[in-house]
């Protein structure tokens, strides 16, 4: 059986979630690999969500927010825009391919764009293969929770 990646999509309530909705209403087809989680704003995305998802078996995480300048909350997406590259570096340090995390802008009217992004991302993760983390229960309260992840990460050459 071919590898079917598990992808978590974290979507902002105002643009991307609506955009996804639009894609659905418009009956656009995109891979079912992505499951979405709604937050009010991409600024709400805590890096912990990403680690949690990866630790619990996700192969990739897709964050979607409003286009820069269009944020419903004035500037939440700019906050996100700063956090994600840092998180990507952190993932790389841990030995996880940073391509497994992606940030995209999707507006409420861009159902087609949403479809395209999800398809592309799914294909990319499929190409990267499954994220082989040791079977472990990610415990938020364990002080060594991230190093445990690092031990079990992709064999990506860092630096």
């Amino acid at each position, binding site marked *: 059986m071919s590898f079917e990646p*598990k992808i*978590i999509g974290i979507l902002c309530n105002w643009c991307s979630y609506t955009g996804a909705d639009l894609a659905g209403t418009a009956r656009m087809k995109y891979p079912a690999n992505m*499951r979405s*989680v709604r*937050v*009010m*704003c991409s*600024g*709400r*995305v*805590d*890096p*912990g*969500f990403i680690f*949690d*998802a990866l630790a*619990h*078996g*996700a192969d990739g995480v897709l964050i979607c927010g409003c*286009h820069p*300048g*269009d*944020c*419903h*909350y*004035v*500037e*939440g997406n700019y*906050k996100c825009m700063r*956090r994600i590259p840092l998180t990507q570096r952190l993932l790389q340090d841990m030995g996880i391919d940073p391509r497994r995390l992606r940030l995209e802008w999707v507006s409420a009217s861009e159902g087609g764009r949403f479809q395209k992004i999800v398809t592309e991302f799914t294909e990319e993760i499929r190409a990267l293969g499954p994220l082989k983390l040791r079977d472990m229960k990610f415990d*938020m309260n364990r002080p060594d929770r991230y190093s445990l992840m690092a031990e079990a990460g992709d064999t990506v050459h860092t630096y």
Partner: protein
Amino acid sequence: MVKVTIDGLEIEVEEETTILKAARQLGITIPALCYNELIEPYAVCRLCVVELQRGQRTRLVTACNYPLRESVVIRTNSERVQRLRRMNIELLMARAPGAKIIQDLAAEMGIERTRFPLEDSDEKCILCGLCVQACSDVVQAYALGFSERGSKRVIGPPYDTTPETCILCGACAYFCPTGHIKMTDTDGRILHSELTLGPNAAITLPFRQAIPNVPRVNPDYCIHMKTGGCELCVKVCQKEAINFTELAQDSFEEFEVGAVIMATGFQDFDPTPMKLYGYGVLPNVLTSDEFERMNNAASPTGGRIVMENGEEPRSIAILHCIGSRDEHYHKYCSRVCCMYELNFAHLVNVKTSAEVYQLYIDMRSFGKGYEEFYQRILDEGVNVIRGKGAEVVPAYQKRRGEGGLLVCCEDTLIGKYREIPVDMVVLCTALEARADAAEIGRKFNISTGADGWFIEAHPKLAPVSTTTEGIFLAGVCQGAKDIPDSVAQGAAAAAQVMKMFCQGELLMDGAYAEIVEDICSGCRICNGLCPYNAITYDIEKKVSAVNPAMCKACGTCVAACPSGAITGRHFTDEQIYAQIEGILA
């Protein structure tokens, strides 16, 4: 108060009053050329010399600046004074034979001719220095001064060059008693009101139908605003209504309100960067706003449609979509232009016999009765050309046509390139969001879209609300729309406010952020992050707290809190983790 006797008449005046003022109160005229009541007396023409007797001593003093401090007897017309005055006039007649005021004074005194050889017979300057004083003391531009000395003394700008400090105010010409100084626009630096279509005096009614209908000071032309000097209006205004200390600074007033309706409107797109249309470079290329102003009965032209030379144009081209529906400027349609341009065409037809050309991309006459109006314009014989105006050039550049300008376009209906000679071009500029819309938006915690218009809470379901509770939108600040639409939206916004007020209480969304005091370390990271200033820091408790009424539940602070002290209600960490883990389980 001091009691003085002037030419046998007694008068009581306040101390420090000058003899000249006291004499004028008595109706006695003392000739004075270098005196102007708006300027501190310079006392150099010496024409106002009068005899002053104090006790037994008699002396000669200048009336314009001698301050009365004690009881004295003044003779303004004694034989001695007359002799001096006559000699003075004789000398001035020789110095400035062209000055009419001197000739008049001489005639009054019965002097037929001067005993001295005349200088240049057109000379009018009597070196009274009023212009220099006006320029330095009043205007504070310091563009005029004396040079040389003695009988070679002349007045002029430094080094006899065009002074850079001259602000073209004309004060020197105004104060010149002999008419020696005249204003001429040698290098085109003076703005003509007819050309700019606006008043250029510093104190004017903004326009004839202005509300409130009181004069205002235009800072662009006010000498005081430019140099800090002048303030002559303050001296002249008897009601003491002009107060520069208040004018100079904006005053801030605070109001407590329960709701705000944003109706900040739009600004006109400036077509100057679109060099192809020659706005600001070619004569008779106007924006729609300027054309509208010209058509107004209260305009400088009195509503007549004229070119810069004052003649009626023989042909006018009206160019649609300048700055709107344009990849390089604004992609959106400004919605109102098509209809007001048709109205322009109609006005031109009514007022003049000019040929009108309408150059459009698409004719959008979508409202009630609009299409009918379009048909009427077509019937009036307006040339409607489907094709955007590409370029406006002076006619002689391409070929010598009957008009001064040449409009180039492609007529897409016949598929041909055309050059239309016209006398006047009206550019119908786009409506655009005000330059400071984003700044205003930040102040009110509402966001602007990529076009710069304010974003409504929901395009269909909440078209006048914003994401901030209690703030509503009306009119073009939310997006281009015409007057009926703006009125409708305004009424809707008012209704929303009324609805809110009638309820008596505010319904809040249950989603907002909360800070657990015990966990908060007081790092204040969240304070700066909050776009709504909903988080405040309690100095005594050394913790931050969220005001739930202001919080919009975006969750940015929740994600950023290093201690995990902030909970986003309805979107708590636990809920999201549970969702993620649930999906992946």
